[in-house]
């Protein structure tokens, strides 16, 4: 099925949820409101003609100047029909949460953890929402646009304190080079 036919099907069922539809180099992107994301995903997954059985990727994007700051992007593919559709759910800054799609695609588990880790978006109903790439006691969300690339002046990760303490006795060894 052509991606634009899928968008027609979606319009029939979820017209009020769709914000806009864009196309770039044969890929179709649908921007939706976040409230019914689970219903829409389930429809795309279960409908026999669409059958988006393969969640290729799930990511976050940060647009600090926009009204709803974050987007959660669902990159869907159908192994059966070989078509792709990109779904983008808008997440405003005042309520940084969205429903988890782990009940539909198990593979979303770690991808949602990563998005949470990097953007601070929480996924409702996720079985095990912990940081995945950053240390558990890390402050801030590294991929947000207002997070500095190199850290603030004089800033140091507090986990270093532990390592430094381990080396306080080094001088007692008096190793002469």
């Amino acid at each position: 099925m052509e991606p634009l036919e899928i968008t027609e099907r979606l319009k029939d069922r979820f017209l009020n949820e769709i914000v806009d539809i864009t196309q770039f180099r044969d890929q179709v992107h649908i921007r939706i409101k976040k409230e019914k994301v689970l219903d829409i995903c389930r429809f795309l997954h279960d409908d026999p003609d669409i059958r988006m059985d393969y969640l290729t990727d799930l990511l976050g994007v940060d647009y600090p100047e926009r009204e709803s700051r974050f987007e959660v992007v669902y990159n869907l593919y159908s192994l059966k029909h070989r078509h792709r559709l990109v779904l983008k759910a808008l997440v405003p800054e005042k309520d940084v949460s969205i429903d988890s799609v782990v009940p539909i695609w198990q593979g979303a588990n770690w991808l949602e953890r990563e998005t949470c880790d990097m953007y601070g978006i929480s996924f409702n109903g996720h079985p095990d929402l912990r940081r995945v790439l950053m240390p558990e006691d890390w402050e801030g969300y590294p991929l947000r646009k207002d997070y500095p690339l190199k850290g603030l002046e004089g800033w140091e990760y507090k986990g270093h304190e532990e390592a430094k303490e381990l080396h306080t006795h080094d001088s007692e060894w008096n190793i002469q080079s």
Partner: protein
Amino acid sequence: MESERDENSRIATKEMTLNMGPQHPATHGVLRLVLDLDGETVKKVTPYVGYLHRGIEKLAEHRNYMQVLPLTDRLDYISAMTNNIGYCTAVEKLFGIELPERTKYIRTMLAEMTRIISHLLWLGTHVIDIGALTVFFYTFREREQLLDLLERLCGARLTVTYPRIGGLKNDVDAQWLDDLYKFTDTFPARIEEYETLVDQNRIFLSRTKGVGVISAEEAINWGLSGPVIRGSGVPYDVRKFMPYGVYDKLKWEVPTGKNGDVYDRYRVRMEEFRQSTSMIRQCIEQMPEGPIMADAPKFTLPAKDKVLTDMEHLIHHFVLITKGPQTAPEGELYVATEVPKGELGFYFVSDGTGKPYRMKIRSPSFVHVSVLPELCVGGLVPDVIANIGSIDIVLGEIDR
């Protein structure tokens, strides 16, 4: 005596938590697993990753498209060439650059060569984990020949950075192609050699058959790719489903397994050796003459010999490397390529400036390590090792 035995039978067992890694030879990098054990049976597996996190996605937002290319080498550092090709393919599609035919052939040939290099390392280390030391020495003999060829081609053995946006660093010469062709003459016999060492080995068979089973439906639901999903019998291969390069012009098949266990994943990779060898031969036989850089001066570097002799080309080169292309088409795009581990995809959000607004790397190993608990629970501790080897993860790609 009798009472003592009674005593023993009433001893209460309790679960043990075992920490494995991050410094452990069988985890293939800095992967840490926490295993909850009941005797020798694994009850729960919790993987911890991130020890190698370098923030490549964040870095990419602060670099121009040219400067991101060397970062991609450091993803899956065993098969850097395929990462470069994946990145360049994605950027070229974003920019709308059409590649010359010769470049497509060279890239396809190099991608398959890298697949062999990566699978040789996988075979050697995977079989060592299971207890057969010999195969390692055989696979590294052939791997060395291929790495030497890469060194002759571009000066680097591992982090090659050989492709460029819109082309390649330099052309391949006829002697180099001859030597690679000679390698493909002898390599099929080598594959049989590995198989005689492993395939009939009773220890290897009992360690791999029926271990770490994942069904086709589950594999799709988990989003697995590469030899792991093909071992479960799903013929999903990006090279067939969304062809790039010249894969649609070559004759080749997608090998698949049936049972989705460690042994079938091993078989799939062994067959991929043969398919890759045949593809390299076809590429060399069909390769046309012609330019290697696309005709898009706004995005592609000028030829190196002109840069060294001509002022205008030197300026052009300098501006592109330091500042990069000043504009890029505005839009969002996902482009996938098949690397030895599975589907490597780049998702670009371009805001029209010369830097990617957001670059998401869909790395196969990140998805594969998340399925590890699913494979290991209910098995024995040694099966954990076999499973880690069979999903062929690289931590550079997981942590990014």
